[in-house]
């Protein structure tokens, strides 16, 4: 999988999770900071952590 496709997949997966969470727990939809933090976690921090663990 190319890095662009992997990136698109991560964004779509993050979106699906966030929408599902938001539909059942709408309080998570009220804060831009939490939304942006969730995105950073999903498309940057967790993939970076996974890559680091795989390299070890």
């Amino acid at each position, binding site marked *: 999988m190319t890095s*662009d496709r992997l*990136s698109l997949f991560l*964004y779509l997966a*993050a*979106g699906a999770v*966030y*929408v*599902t*969470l*938001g*539909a*059942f727990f*709408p309080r998570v*939809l*009220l804060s*831009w900071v939490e*939304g*942006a933090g969730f*995105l*950073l976690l999903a*498309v*940057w921090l967790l*993939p*970076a952590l996974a890559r680091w663990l795989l390299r070890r």
Partner: protein
Amino acid sequence: MSWATHDLEPYAIQRHLKGKVAIIPLLIGSYSPDVATKWFVYGTNIFGLEFGAEDAAQFHRGWPGAGFTHSLAFGVVVALLIFAVSRHRVWAVSFVIGQWSHALSDTGDTMGTMLLFPFTTQLYSVEAWAYAVQVGRFGDAAAYFSGPGFVWDGFWVAYGLLSWRVLTRSYFHEVITQADPVWGWAGRFLPEAALLALYRASFFYGVTRWTAWLLWAHVVNDYAFDISWGGPDWSPALSR
């Protein structure tokens, strides 16, 4: 008020004005009318103490109150302050465009905005969807995502998705970072993946919460759709 519109309009403006605007002050301008006041409009509970406006609509859109943040003059004054401090014309222009887009978008609800404050406290409105802050965040969300408001937001979701090229890595490097030195500075501390996520965050937030609120209102709950002008009829809408 509008919900996802304020997240998405800046990307549409970015698409058309390209390097003439900077996305960060554009977004800050778009959020600025409500950023310091919305918590007080809906009220909040801190350590058991209730804080909130006695008359939420008057505080949000009126004078006396914080309604001046939805005036065109407010955007100009803050933009002049930004220019005085930074000497960065693009930041100042971007802020005022973002703030004006918010103030004009909010004329769509039944309450409207004091666009021409301080010259007049007249509220200007086309009364397309119900203004219902007085029933709290969730009641307001239920009304907005059941009436013409969700259609208005949906237009910006669709337009944003059609403008997907502004979200690409190449557009980010060729246009966004060239228009604003903040991205170059941030790039000294953060990798590209984090910068791109921050650039795309408001778009992500707008599209996903529009979808989630619709599901919450009509799948998890059972609020009735009513996209008649000024609707939904079942919501207690406030007007000028």
